[in-house]
């Protein structure tokens, strides 16, 4: 179809007749359509062709010139778009539209614009024929241009070269089912570009992730336009260095490696339509034609937010956690909000036998947990929290999802089917707004601990058995000592009693003997009588003193036995005060030997009062008792304190104890040095028994003729042992 004004020169902007009116309206419409459309109109990547109502071309932009090989002047006011379209396709289109709309449509310009003329939005594929006769597939969008009265005054046909897209689609078809699935998945952004990077395909996943509709970006921008510019610059620099060639920080930086046949997967921050950002992992493939010429690129991306946040949370959690995360001894498993594993660290690989690739984006932690335990856990939690929890991943993270700290035991199942007990700590991963974007499950292999626990249980039982045996034996000894000392006392009563009776009789015997001798008048015999009398007296006195000593010893045994049975009671004791009362009890003796006693500031203690009174009164008593006659006595009590213990020192300048006796003096009935003071060798034995029962120790440092220090170390706080609480 030609136009009658064929000789009119192509002067855009010169208004002349109806054709000019159409052009003006077209230009106005474009102005109104705003910046984006203007950009498209002026873009070399779009052929923008405006016609008058009859189809005669009025505008033919630079993109149209580039794509079709005609200059504007060659077509304007001369031909219609039908003249540069595949005639067979125009015929086919006319037929199809006639059938669809039940009206006869002629296979010419009408077939190209009929829908648009009826107000129906129309985008279709069409093969354009270049000036040189070659062809290319185009996608054409047709809009009717109307005047103020809404009458059609022309059409605008915006076309894009569809070659790259066609090839991309073909390549994708060839790439098989898996890639197709990826391509169609809403979880992957699949963006195909032409060789220059202009987006040709923008799948549902890309729409979902990036917030653009396909129409927003197709034939419009490159993936570089939706990528972080700083990262592009950095990537371009790094690649320039790596590959030894200058790479520009644009689309080239995104696909350069792929264009060189190098497999390329990298992390990138995409920018959504609303300006928000998200980390993506992008895999780039060059699309090639039959001659292996690159005709475009396919960028498949996954949203890396969950993983990134998991990693960020881990980074924030500090060195320890990151050490845990990187440790082969902890299984660190991060999932997205639905439980699908996103990170599976070396520890998890080692413990569970799966490689990260086996499980990432495939399964949830519930799939590697004991199903029976999951059911039990879900039931228990349902009851506990009063809400129905399903026996799957939910059961593992429900508490964490409610902000409750959750650490529990769980049996994991390895790839080979074997099982091991784990202790799992679960944390919800949240974004800046507090929304959960995933979970982190850190697990430790509990096998060793379980074994240790079992062993510990056995040991505890054995210890309890032993303790019971010991306390039984101890009780038996106490009873034995008690009974024996009583039974030993009975014969002593007789020994003492009859020795005394004998003594009485002895006097009578010798009196009678003397009387008898007086009667017979024997004088010289009285000397031998006297000798006999003193022998008998001596014998009786040995019997009585030995019996008395034995009574004292038995008394001491009884006392020790009673102390052993006495219930100790821990209470807070002011030690300065306790020593002061001890000192007062000794004041008289101290004055007698001219001894000076000084008591320093002593820290308070929680222990048994009576026992400590006995211990320190014994030590003070000893100190006073064994001073030297030649020097003024000096006795000093002080204390040193550590974290959990206090050491009280009783220091004197007395006669001292020989080094060989320093251990012996704590034994029952043992004494040291000259036996010139009363005593049975019981005091220190008693003191040691008491101090030991109070969880402490007593020892002595001494230098003969210089002095002695007794050191009593006691726990700051003594608790009643469990075995004593039971009695």
């Amino acid at each position, binding site marked *: 179809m030609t136009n009658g004004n064929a000789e009119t020169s192509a002067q855009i902007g010169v208004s002349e007749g109806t054709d000019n009116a159409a052009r003006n309206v077209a230009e106005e419409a474009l102005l109104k359509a705003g910046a984006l459309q203007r950009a498209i109109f002026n873009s070399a990547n779009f052929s923008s062709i405006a016609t008058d109502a009859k189809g005669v071309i009025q505008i033919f932009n630079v993109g149209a010139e580039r794509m079709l090989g005609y200059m504007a002047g060659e077509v304007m006011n001369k031909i219609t778009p039908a003249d540069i379209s595949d005639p067979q396709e125009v015929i086919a289109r006319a037929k199809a539209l006639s059938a669809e709309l039940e009206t006869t449509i002629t296979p010419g310009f009408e077939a190209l614009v009929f829908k648009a003329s009826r107000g129906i939005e129309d985008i279709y594929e069409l093969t354009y024929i270049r000036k040189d006769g070659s062809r290319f597939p185009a996608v054409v969008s047709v809009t009717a241009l109307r005047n103020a009265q809404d009458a059609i005054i022309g059409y605008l046909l915006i076309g894009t070269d569809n070659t790259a897209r066609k090839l991309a689609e073909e390549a994708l078809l060839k790439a098989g089912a898996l890639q197709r699935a990826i391509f169609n998945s809403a979880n992957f952004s699949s963006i195909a570009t032409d060789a220059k990077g202009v987006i040709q395909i923008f799948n549902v996943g890309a729409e979902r992730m990036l917030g653009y509709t396909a129409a927003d970006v197709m034939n419009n921008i490159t993936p570089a336009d939706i990528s972080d510019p700083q990262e592009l610059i950095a990537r371009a620099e790094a690649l320039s260095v790596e590959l030894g060639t200058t790479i520009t920080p644009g689309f080239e930086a995104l696909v350069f490696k792929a264009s060189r046949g190098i497999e390329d997967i990298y992390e990138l921050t995409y920018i959504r339509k609303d300006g928000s950002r998200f980390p993506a992992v992008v895999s780039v493939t060059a699309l090639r034609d039959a001659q292996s010429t690159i005709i475009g690129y396919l960028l498949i991306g996954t949203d890396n937010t969950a993983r990134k946040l998991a990693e960020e949370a881990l980074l924030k959690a500090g060195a320890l956690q990151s050490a845990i995360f990187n440790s082969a001894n902890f299984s660190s498993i991060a999932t997205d909000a639905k439980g699908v594993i996103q990170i599976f660290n070396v520890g998890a690989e080692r413990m569970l036998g799966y490689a990260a690739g086996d499980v990432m984006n495939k399964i949830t932690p519930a799939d590697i947990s004991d199903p029976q335990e999951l059911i039990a856990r879900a039931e228990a939690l349902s009851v506990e929290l009063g809400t129905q929890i399903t026996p799957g991943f939910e059961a593992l993270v429900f508490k964490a999802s409610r902000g409750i700290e959750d650490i529990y035991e769980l049996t994991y199942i390895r790839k080979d089917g074997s099982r091991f007990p784990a202790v799992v700590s679960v944390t919800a991963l949240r974004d800046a707004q507090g929304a959960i974007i995933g979970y982190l499950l850190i697990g430790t292999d509990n096998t060793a601990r379980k074994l240790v626990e079992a062993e510990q249980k056995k040991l505890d039982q054995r210890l309890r058995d032993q303790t019971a045996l010991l306390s039984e034996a101890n009780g038996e000894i106490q009873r034995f000592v008690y009974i024996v000392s009583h039974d030993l006392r009975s014969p002593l*009563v007789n020994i003492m*009693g009859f020795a005394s009776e004998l003594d009485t009789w002895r006097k009578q015997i010798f009196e009678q003997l003397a009387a008898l001798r007086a009667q017979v008048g024997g004088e010289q015999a009285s000397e031998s009588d006297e000798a006999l009398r003193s022998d008998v007296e001596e014998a009786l006195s040995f019997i009585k003193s030995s019996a008395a000593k034995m009574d004292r010893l038995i008394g001491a045994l009884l006392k020790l036995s009673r102390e052993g049975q006495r219930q100790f009671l821990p209470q807070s004791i002011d030690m300065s005060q306790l020593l002061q009362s001890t000192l007062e009890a000794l004041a008289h003796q101290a004055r007698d030997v001219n001894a000076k006693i000084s008591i320093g500031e002593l820290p308070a203690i929680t222990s048994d009062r009576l026992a400590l009174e006995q211990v320190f009164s014994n030590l003070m008593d000893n100190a006073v008792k064994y001073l030297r006659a030649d020097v003024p006595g000096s006795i000093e009590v002080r204390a040193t304190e550590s974290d959990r213990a206090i050491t009280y020192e009783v220091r004197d300048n007395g006669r001292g104890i020989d080094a060989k006796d320093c251990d012996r003096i704590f034994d029952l009935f043992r004494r040291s040095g000259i036996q010139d003071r009363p005593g049975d060798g019981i005091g220190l034995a008693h003191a040691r028994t008491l101090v030991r029962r109070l969880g402490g120790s007593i020892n002595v440092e001494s230098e003969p003729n210089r002095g002695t220090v007794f050191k009593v170390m006691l726990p700051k706080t003594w608790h009643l042992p469990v075995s004593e609480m039971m009695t």
Partner: protein
Amino acid sequence: MTQQVVIVMVEDDEGHARLIEKNLRRAGIKNEIVPLADGASAIAFLFGSDGSGLVNKGRPLLILLDLNLPDMSGIDILKRIKENEHLRVSPVVVLTTTDDKSEIQRCYDLNCNVYITKPVDYEKFANAIQQLGLFMYVIQVPEAI
């Protein structure tokens, strides 16, 4: 103490028994002393063959009781005496080597009348028994009901 009062001395140690008797006599006690060397013979004497104690009805008894007996504890004998309808009024003097406080407490809880410890020191022993003798001399002993 009237002449008819019978002193029942439950004491397994013959030596002790002799020393006690000697010192009581020294204190001027002339009453009959029935020495019983073990628990079984003490029970038999006190409660009779029927075990009712009726055998001693109408007799004034003063009982000296050692706690450490070979065949039973003196505590059990004390308990039976004080639970017996006939003998419960008879004074019981516990005379033993045990000076354990809880033991003393227990005897008084069971209504013993006097608790005396036998000292090993004979002077003290003799003194204690003679004091007891003087005490016996002045107290009134009821007849078993």
